[in-house]
């Protein structure tokens, strides 16, 4: 068995550490790229949302490198993500690929037994002792939390750094180095060392950089390729960005959901606009937008794939939030046709707007 999985932000780093520890063969798909998207879009129905297409591209590029088993997480609606696996299997089968899918679904849907058997199937491929398997899992969770922390901090500190570009360089370097380390405990050490390095980056605390919060559909938020690396772009402009969604956020969310303690703050903040569950993470989108306003952010960028169902609901609500709270919100929609040029112009225009608002504010305040 050679496993693979679709990309989602930094998860591949944690997966690598886990499979290395377990001694399971794996293929990490080439980082999401234009070719993957082209392949994916070609073999997927036109109107399916972007994540589906990139994922198909990931699978096919992995299969070509020898993978024969796909691991993905599921959900039970109401959004499309829950049906992804069904159609992805069908698409790959029609293309003549012989791959097995292991869908890690919520136990509430498939039953604890079935879930245990699906996870057991993966775990049985490893000849390690039970305690080592647990350690593998522990390491993976630790790694993703460290990596997400490093990324989140770097993106925020970028607004304050004295040497332009230092945060970004550090972040890229860190990713590169852990990824090329096949000894899991060394990989963790690397992550820790970068966490330390990050805290030593010289910053100018008196600077008041523009602060932007990024919210929206989870995949386009986390998988940077899908959003044309928007955060990197913002970093280049010296903007401090904050985004709550990340793989470790998702882990925590999914774990706490059982206790109904998931994303408490965002969900509370969403309440005045949206009391009920819509699907996927629309409620969190609304909540995060309100929080960003309360925390004094200059603007919000809302990301979603074209045709995304739950985020259309949040988009309607965000329009009101922008008006009522007087905070600029820009919506960016993505599909395989999204071009580079128009997209950059929009971001620049948005930044201009935020800067202008700041200046006007200062003036009127005096």
């Amino acid at each position, binding site marked *: 068995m050679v496993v693979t999985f679709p990309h989602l932000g930094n998860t591949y780093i944690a997966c690598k550490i886990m499979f290395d520890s377990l001694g399971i063969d794996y293929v990490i798909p080439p980082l999401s790229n234009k070719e993957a998207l082209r392949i994916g879009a070609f073999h997927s129905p*036109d109107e*399916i949302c972007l994540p589906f297409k990139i994922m198909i591209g990931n699978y096919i590029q992995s299969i070509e490198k020898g993978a024969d088993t796909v691991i993905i997480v599921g959900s039970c*609606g*109401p*959004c499309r993500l829950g049906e992804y696996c069904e159609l992805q299997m*069908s698409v790959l089968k029609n293309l003549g690929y012989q791959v097995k899918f292991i*869908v890690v679904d919520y136990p509430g849907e498939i039953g604890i037994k079935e879930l245990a058997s699906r996870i057991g199937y993966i775990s049985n491929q490893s000849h390690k002792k039970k305690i080592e398997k647990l350690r593998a899992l522990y390491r993976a969770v630790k790694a993703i939390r460290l990596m997400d922390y490093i990324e989140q901090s770097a993106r925020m500190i970028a607004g304050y750094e004295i040497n332009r570009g230092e945060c970004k360089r550090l972040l890229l370097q860190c990713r590169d180095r852990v990824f090329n380390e096949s000894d899991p405990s060394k990989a963790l050490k690397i992550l820790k060392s970068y966490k330390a390095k990050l805290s030593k980056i010289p910053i100018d605390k008196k600077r008041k950089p523009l602060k932007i919060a990024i919210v929206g559909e989870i995949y386009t938020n986390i998988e940077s390729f899908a959003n044309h690396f928007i955060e990197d772009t913002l970093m280049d402009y010296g903007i401090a960005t904050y985004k709550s969604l990340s793989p470790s956020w998702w882990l925590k969310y999914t774990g706490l959901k059982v206790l109904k303690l998931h994303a408490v703050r965002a969900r509370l903040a969403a309440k005045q606009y949206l009391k009920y569950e819509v699907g996927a993470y629309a409620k969190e989108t609304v909540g995060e937008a309100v929080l960003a306003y309360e925390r004094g952010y200059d603007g919000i960028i809302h990301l979603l794939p074209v045709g995304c169902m739950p985020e*259309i609901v949040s988009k309607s609500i965000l329009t009101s939030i922008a008006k009522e709270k007087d905070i600029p919100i820009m919506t960016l929609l993505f599909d395989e046709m999204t071009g580079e040029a128009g997209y950059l112009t929009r971001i620049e225009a948005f930044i201009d707007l935020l800067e202008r608002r700041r200046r006007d504010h200062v003036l009127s305040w005096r």
Partner: protein
Amino acid sequence: MIVGLPKGLLFHQYEKFITEFLKVLQIDYIISKDTNKDILNLGVKYCVDEACLPIKIFHGHVASIKDRCDLVIVPRIVSVHEKEFICPKFNGLPEMILHNIPNMPAITTKPLYLYSEKKTLAWLEDFGSMLNKNKNQVREAYIRGKEIYDRQKLGYNDKRYRRRVLLVGHPYNIDDIYMNMNIKKKLNDLGVGVMTHHYVRDKDKQKEVDKLYKRPFWTFARHTYGSCVYLGRTQQVDGIIYLSSFNCGIDSIFIQLIKNELKDFPLLVVKIDEHTGEAGLNTRLEAYTDMLERKKKNGSNFPASREHLYSM
């Protein structure tokens, strides 16, 4: 107190119930007109661009009556079947309406779970309290409404036509004859009878659905998939027409699953949006019926056209 009933989305399915319910309670109500150009334009004007046509049309219906009533029913129908859903957009319908259309009167916002009598009643009681009606009055009206509702027969099953097709799609795509340009009549005029999933036994649908890896959690998709694959496999109809709208996330998955399953069976996908023209549809339907005829004449080996209609 005047209650407004927008004639969009699942209204046709529950029209009999809700009107009887309001009559028994002696509440005045108005129903928006059948979908027409003005309603469509209103919907396009107010709704977010990226939404699907049925949601836009619903916006139009609401906007067309909002100034003439005190309370609009904007049903947040989360589910009509246990452990299943309709669509995320249904779950957020009241929010979309409130935030997209200015100066709205009061609307209903509580979620509706129609598979459970208890939950349905709880919703109605809450609704009744907005109308100053007590629980007993609501219960009585519910029983009367349900009687009538249960007696109605939904769907079509045309007999005595040369050819017969299964017409599938979300109920509102089939019910709204302005939106679908009365496709049923067009087909009938071409000598094609129409049947809907209502006339396929649940048992038969379920057999096909059970072959899926995962239990589908969208009710309409389950009916659609089950009836298409069952009738297609057993060749009990000459063809299938799938009425869909652009930007429907659910159809984007299930149309493909059905295609992959039925391979060469004559499946015509008709996707509609606000720019769809009638002439294009006519041509497509004529070509499609011609193809069905040819196929019949040449035996079932004749390859069906796999061309699909996206924009007309």
